[in-house]
């Protein structure tokens, strides 16, 4: 009896310890599962996506990723935004140009929930590239380059998808390593 109680206590303690590690779990889709949290919290809680989150807040689009409907956000990392350069960063922080920032964010959003695994499966099934409509200037085309999935927008900008996608309650966040925007659109 004493051993049973001891084993139970150990198991209970382990369970508590694991639950304290956070709600994130690995899902069958190969993405981290935070399906209890909306996109806004998942993006807002990722230190590498702080610039993207700030952009969602400044443009009001945070209301979209905090809402009930499902979206997939291909979120450029802070490093990706910084790679645009100082002039572009200044422009994107300019209040009078927030509509341009909003347009850029829309380019990185597609309807519904899709993970890198789903994109890879579609590419495999299709025998080549696949496309998804975006809320921006057109479709995004996905293809394989080596081990990576690459996304290309209508104006030819490319970015690589991180495999560290996160499933939220209202969609999926997939970090990407560059911003899908024509540099000409960011000229002063």
């Amino acid at each position, binding site marked *: 009896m004493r051993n049973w109680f001891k084993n139970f206590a150990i198991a209970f303690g382990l369970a508590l310890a694991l639950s304290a590690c956070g709600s994130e779990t690995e899902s069958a889709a190969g993405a981290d599962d935070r399906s209890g949290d909306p996109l806004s919290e998942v993006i807002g809680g990722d230190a590498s996506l702080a610039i993207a989150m700030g952009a969602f807040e400044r443009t009001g689009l945070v209301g979209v990723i905090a809402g009930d409907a*499902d979206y997939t956000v291909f979120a450029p990392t802070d490093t990706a935004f910084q790679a645009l350069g100082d002039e572009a960063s200044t422009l994107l922080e300019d209040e009078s140009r927030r509509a341009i920032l909003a*347009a850029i964010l829309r380019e990185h959003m597609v*309807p519904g929930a899709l993970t890198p695994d789903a994109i890879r499966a*579609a590419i495999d099934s299709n025998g080549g590239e696949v496309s998804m409509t975006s809320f921006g200037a057109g479709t995004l085309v996905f293809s394989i380059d080596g081990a990576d999935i690459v996304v290309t927008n209508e104006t030819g900008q490319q970015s690589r998808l991180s495999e560290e996608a996160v499933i939220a309650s209202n969609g999926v966040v997939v970090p990407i390593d560059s911003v899908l925007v024509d540099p000409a659109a960011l*000229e002063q």
Partner: protein
Amino acid sequence: MRIRIRRLVAAGTASLAMAFAPLAFAQGQDNGRGNGGGPSAAEGNGNPSSGNRDNGNPGSGNPGSGNRDNGNANNGNQGGSAASAPGNGNAPTARGGQPPQVDRGRSSRAVERGNGNGVGNNRNAGSRGDRARDGAEVDFALRGLRDAFGIRPRLIEGCPPGLAKKRNGCLPPGQARQAYRSYNPGFFSLFGADRGDYFYNDGYLLRYRGDSLLGYLPLLGGALGIGNVWPDYYEPQPLPAYYTDYYSLGDARSYRYADNVIYRVDPETAAITSVAALLTGDQIEVGQPMPRGYDVYNVPYRYRDRYYDTPQARYRYSDGYVYSIDPETALVASVIDLAI
């Protein structure tokens, strides 16, 4: 959660007369997104143990609620300049600058509503039935948007009021070309706008032609940004009930719509408080090919136990609906309501 399947009898599907107007934008971007090339990739995820599901394929629904004639509505703003056109011309528009012209007057549709693949009845099911009988809201909500708001971005005549107060708000064309950067309206997801020279200034796209300023388009995040009062020139109109349910919009005073974006506003002041939803505006019709851009399985996770790809049907999500697609023909077989 309510789920309802609609399959439109093939012989009665709405006839779409697609007229395409060529557009050439300043940046020369080709945003072509016409129909064709249906989805070809299917992800076999989902829950095979779900058992005896019908998957929303033809035959799953109760025989329909009768033929309905959508009437002789005329959007009235197709073709020609949209400048200062009465009504609202800021509705979902097919991408690629090719606004389809929809002839709804000759369409007679039998709407067949299924029972949600075995999903039980739930709240408001009865009221949904009432709506079906009156025919006002049983129709596809996207079509309701087109009816209410038209299909093109609406150019507002003149100089924007806010800019007009500024010394250099609306410069003459020659100076504007030097002072402002030109943009393709498609960059801002404004598809179907009239051709011309568009320049960005302080949250607006200004359209010039020759030596005159023709008008402007207010932009999400700019003129239609948080804290700004909803402009008078976009008269508030209620959205189809399906969207108010799906996007939890509340009563008609608390939201506004323009150019595939739904905004929340303060009911008292009409100040924009947030962006509630983005829509693709893709015009997806039963019996027609799925538009380009739905190759990847994207059904929201909470519906995946019901709608997963099989050899008999593929499922794709867009703007609050799940669409069943026949893998052999790549035609849309049914539209599935998802009401939360």
